[in-house]
């Protein structure tokens, strides 16, 4: 540890100095006038009928990046599923005979009522955020996490079994893959329409309304689906870990 610090601290000092030195060549904070963002801010509303320029950039001008990002998420979730399932399968072999281990974790009635009251509004909020990604701040990424949180509340309010009924694993996996594939398929749609991959081939509609900006809402929905499924999978994989092992805690 000591030698490591001796190595690291001077190196970090030099690195920090260089970093600061380089950054001092930037325009002062607040004076940025780069052409890319200015052009996009000028044309996004008129050309894409999307009032949310960040959304238009994410899903249209630089939509190809977002496809890559979506697949990073996809790959990370697949990797985690592999990692944690192996742990769990070994456990299940050992503890197959114990099937009632989830009985213990029942929530109190108050918590349950509170939770159920929360689920509805959370789901509505999530759907709203996903659907309005091209109009107001938000979109598939943020809304997807909110929707996943709503499903987690179902778990918190009830029991694991309830949760299991709400999210049958194959269905969630299907949703995750569907979300990922959906993005690519919308991209292919642009090719079929006679232009390039991810060409915005749908009617643009009236700016500021729900049905506008062409394919952007569609991409938001597929990302929303992917993110919801991904986070439900992630968190429930971690939760499953708890349950399988939870039995021998007491």
């Amino acid at each position, binding site marked *: 540890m000591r030698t490591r610090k001796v190595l690291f601290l001077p190196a970090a000092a030099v690195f920090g100095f260089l970093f600061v030195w380089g950054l001092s060549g930037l325009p002062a904070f607040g004076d940025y006038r780069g052409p890319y*963002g200015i052009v996009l801010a000028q044309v996004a509303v008129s050309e894409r009928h999307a009032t949310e320029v960040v959304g*238009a950039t*994410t899903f249209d001008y630089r939509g190809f*990046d977002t496809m890559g990002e979506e697949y990073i998420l996809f790959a990370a979730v697949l990797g985690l599923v592999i990692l*944690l399932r192996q*742990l769990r399968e070994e456990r299940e072999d050992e503890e197959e005979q114990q099937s009632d281990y989830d009985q213990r974790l029942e929530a109190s009635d108050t918590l349950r009522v509170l939770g159920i009251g929360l689920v509805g509004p959370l789901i509505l909020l999530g759907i709203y955020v996903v659907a309005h990604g091209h109009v107001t701040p938000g979109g598939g990424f943020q809304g997807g996490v909110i929707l996943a949180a709503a499903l987690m509340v179902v778990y918190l309010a009830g029991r694991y079994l309830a949760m299991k009924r709400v999210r049958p694993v194959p269905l969630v996996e299907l949703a995750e893959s569907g979300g990922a594939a959906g993005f690519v398929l919308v991209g292919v749609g642009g090719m079929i329409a006679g232009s390039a991959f991810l060409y915005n081939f749908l009617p643009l509609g009236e700016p500021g309304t729900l049905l506008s900006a062409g394919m952007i809402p569609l991409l938001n929905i597929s990302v929303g689906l992917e993110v919801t499924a991904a986070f439900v999978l992630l968190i429930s994989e971690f939760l499953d*870990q708890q349950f399988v092992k939870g039995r021998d805690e007491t």
Partner: protein
Amino acid sequence: MSFLPYAAAVWLFLIGLYGIVTSRHLVHLIVCLTVVQSSTYVLLLAIGYRAGAEAPIFADIPPETPVVDPVVQALTLTDVVVGATVSALLLGLTLQAQKRLGTVNPDEIGVLKG
């Protein structure tokens, strides 16, 4: 004063690295990695900021209003969500490390030496 955002970004990068280097717990190490990551967010958003400009959303502002750079925001917003899933993957590796190696202290792992 106008250098403060950049200084904060550099600081977060360095302190996060320091945490990784000195960490004695893999979960701690992973959280330090997210601190380094947040440095890149602060850096990108600070670069694209325009003094006195609005957020790049024309839902209720007139079309000619100056807005901050939308591109850096687009780059950052996806990365925030994706970064969390990457951390989840690393947390999964940590669980496996506890299971297979019996420890989550990087000082005690060292199977792959030489």
